[in-house]
């Protein structure tokens, strides 16, 4: 019994919500807008749960008389009867594929997405553009689920671009604020660079594989069956593969192009610059798009196309290096930021770096595991930060907070859960996933040891900056006078607290499923973890203990610096002014890009604009001149003089006569003019 799961409803329901709220939402009462905005993602989430249940039933199909439930086997595909593109050999369908990978991703996207929708009801209650906000959020859910469910690269790209668009719209939600509008543009432009790489990658895929469907691409690699052999001994499979596959060089270039796309979307070096600025958007947006779901699309894409990366060891190594470098880089910047949301933004970049590291060591299930736990705890952290900001009446500077744990007990508890989870303190969610990544990196040869070490240092820094945030915000004494009034004015509504509690529970327990179960579940989609057999339990335990110890050290340092001796950080900063300035200015990343890319481009565009204007005005002048000249000549025809009209008439008739005579005169004998049969077609 293989009935339809109606996967197409999962993206479509939020789209309907978008249309309703977008078109008539501003005229509806707030209550109805909220209902539409919440019901759409809730319905999607229920569809996903239904799909998940259907697959589980298949897994335990011994229960034959369980009732008329729909049961399916993964991967399960739904294709629209009408093809999207049908050009020559290129055949692209609107196909939706549900497999283990997309199922996990969908549960995260719709589940966490729905919670954040609920949170938004409270958070955005007093804001203008309430309906616009919810219509954008629903549109995001539409594009994100399309991205996740897409069965081919091009359809995925559609969702990919769509979430980029919504990101732009929501970062610039307060469009009357210049900085927000600029941040939106920056996010869009930087993503465009990444998307350029993605597009080139798609073209390369099409040129070398002749198909864009994920399953068909994967099928091309199937003869060279053992990925494990490949990791240890690349040359064997490489020779084995060349007879039917594109060369390793081509695959490597394709993968690097795709990596550029992933780096753009997931804010990795060198395209990370947009994400911190994207914090100009409302906090639920930061939680949903810029922490939990959209920015992980790059990781998802690499996992989705992992067969390619598996056959391009060089590209895989680059992925690992980019991820590790980004993790460390962003963590160091996060140490000195004072804006609570920016700390979290750099932390997001850093955690995404972990996921890239996991992809780079071919531990895809660990990457997805970290993606899931990260979605829980980072959404939680952002929403808690949002609750703090809400209570502070819009204040985001941590230096002006402090002592909030009494005023905001629930927020304090949820933030604590999030901080413990992200720092990898056992037994919280982040511990399991980060541990899995570091373990996988450690097992990957001597280079992997280096990656592991950098990852460990990053874990230390993560604990340091997260506990810094925690201490600065919730402990110590209040650092502004009017804070208590503000806290009274903005008590946290229930719609904000419930998602916090649920996410806190998920951050606590989300990791308990264990990487082994998770990897086993995902293995049909992303392949069995290559390193599972190589290590042993004692080593894993040792590494775990080490990671937790490092996190505790970070906590201890933060405790010393930000609670015991609050004057120490300033002294340290004063002692190392160069280093502090470098970090506070984010390694001058924006300035460097400004000098290298933006300024020259700006200057060039100015000249180009001059040239284009000259060209355009020249062409316009030419066209206008031609037209008016023609008009001046032709208007003499319309003189109003009867005899000139008659003259033209006669001349025209004479011309036609002449034409016909010349045309037919060739055939007609002049002598037969009178008796001829051809003149004017008369005759016979």
């Amino acid at each position, binding site marked *: 019994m293989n009935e339809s799961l109606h996967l197409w409803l999962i993206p479509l329901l939020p789209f309907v919500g978008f249309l309703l709220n977008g078109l008539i939402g501003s005229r509806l009462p707030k209550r109805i807008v909220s209902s539409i905005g919440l019901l759409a993602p809730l319905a999607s989430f229920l569809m996903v749960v239904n799909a998940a249940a259907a697959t589980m039933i298949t897994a335990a199909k011994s229960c034959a008389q369980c009732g008329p439930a729909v049961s399916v086997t993964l991967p399960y595909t739904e294709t629209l009867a009408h093809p999207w593109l049908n050009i020559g050999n290129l055949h692209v369908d609107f196909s939706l594929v549900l497999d283990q990978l997309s199922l996990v991703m969908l549960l995260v996207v719709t589940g966490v997405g729905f919670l954040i929708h609920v949170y938004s009801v409270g958070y955005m209650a007093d804001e203008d553009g309430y309906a616009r906000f919810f219509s954008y959020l629903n549109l995001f859910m539409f594009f994100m689920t399309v991205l996740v469910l897409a069965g081919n690269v091009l359809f995925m790209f559609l969702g990919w671009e769509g979430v980029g668009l919504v990101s732009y719209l929501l970062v610039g939600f307060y469009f009357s604020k210049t900085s927000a509008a600029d941040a939106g543009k920056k996010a869009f432009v930087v993503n465009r660079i990444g998307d350029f790489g993605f597009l080139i990658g798609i073209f390369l895929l099409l040129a070398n594989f002749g198909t864009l469907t994920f399953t068909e691409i994967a099928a091309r690699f199937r003869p060279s069956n053992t990925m494990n052999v490949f990791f240890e001994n690349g040359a064997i499979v490489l020779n084995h593969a060349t007879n039917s596959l594109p060369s390793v060089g081509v695959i490597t270039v394709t993968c690097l192009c795709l990596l550029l796309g992933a780096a753009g979307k997931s804010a990795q070096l060198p395209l990370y610059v947009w994400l911190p600025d994207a914090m100009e958007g409302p906090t639920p947006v930061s939680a949903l798009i810029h922490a939990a779901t959209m920015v992980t699309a790059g990781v998802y894409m690499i996992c989705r196309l992992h067969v390619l990366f598996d056959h391009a060891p060089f590209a895989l190594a680059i992925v690992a290096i980019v991820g590790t470098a980004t993790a460390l880089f962003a963590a160091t910047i996060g140490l000195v930021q004072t804006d609570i949301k920016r700390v979290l933004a750099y932390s997001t970049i850093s955690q995404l770096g972990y996921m890239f590291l996991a992809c780079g060591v071919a531990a895809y299930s660990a990457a997805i595991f970290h993606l899931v736990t990260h979605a829980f705890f980072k959404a939680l952290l952002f929403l808690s930060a949002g609750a703090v900001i809400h209570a502070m009446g819009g204040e985001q500077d941590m230096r002006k907070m402090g002592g909030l744990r009494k005023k905001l007990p629930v927020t304090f508890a949820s933030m604590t859960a999030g901080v413990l989870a992200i720092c990898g303190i056992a037994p919280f969610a982040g511990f399991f996933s980060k541990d899995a990544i570091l373990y996988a990196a450690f097992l990957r040869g001597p280079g992997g040891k280096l990656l592991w070490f950098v990852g460990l240092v990053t874990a230390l820094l993560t604990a340091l900056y997260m506990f810094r945030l925690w201490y600065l915000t919730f402990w110590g004494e209040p650092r502004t006078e009017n804070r208590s009034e503000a806290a009274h004015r903005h008590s946290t509504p229930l719609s904000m607290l419930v998602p916090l509690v649920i996410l806190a529970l998920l951050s606590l327990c989300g990791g308990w499923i264990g990487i082994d179960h998770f990897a086993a579940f995902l293995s049909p989609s992303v392949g069995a973890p290559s390193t599972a057999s190589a290590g042993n339990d004692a080593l894993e335990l040792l590494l775990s203990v080490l990671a937790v110890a490092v996190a505790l050290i970070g906590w201890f340092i933060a405790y010393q610096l930000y609670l015991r001796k609050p004057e120490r950080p300033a002294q340290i900063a004063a002692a190392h002014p160069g280093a502090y300035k470098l970090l506070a200015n984010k390694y001058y990343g924006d300035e460097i890009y400004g000098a290298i890319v933006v300024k020259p481009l700006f200057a060039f565009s100015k000249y180009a604009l001059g040239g284009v204007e000259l060209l355009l005005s020249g062409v316009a002048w030419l066209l206008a001149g031609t037209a008016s000249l023609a008009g001046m000549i032709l208007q003499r025809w319309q003189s*109003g*003089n*009867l*005899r000139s009209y*008659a*003259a033209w008439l*006669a001349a025209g008739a004479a011309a036609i006569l002449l034409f016909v005579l010349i045309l037919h005169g060739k055939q007609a004998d002049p002598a037969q*003019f*009178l008796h001829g049969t051809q003149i004017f077609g*008369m005759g016979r």
Partner: protein
Amino acid sequence: MNFLQHDVPLSWYLLLSAALFSLGVVGFLIKRNLITVFMSIELMLNAVNLSFVTFAYQWNEVKGQIFVFFVMMVAAAEAAVGLAIIIAVYRARSTLSVDRIDLMKL
């Protein structure tokens, strides 16, 4: 009938017709007086009539001659209407020069 066939070739009739038609065209184009222009039109119509008759004779067809009667009838009607218009124009403008009658409204 014989003299037509033997003494005067058909081409002469056509040439005469062409000459008359050309005279009509030229008169239409160069004359300014509305009545002369009108007469030139009549001349053209009759030149065409002549060639109709000639061809009708050549092909032994009666259609051409019937056509001529139609043309004459229309020309008569046209003369009646046209002359009435000319008189009306003269009354309104006190002139019959076509160059000065170049506005539809008064």
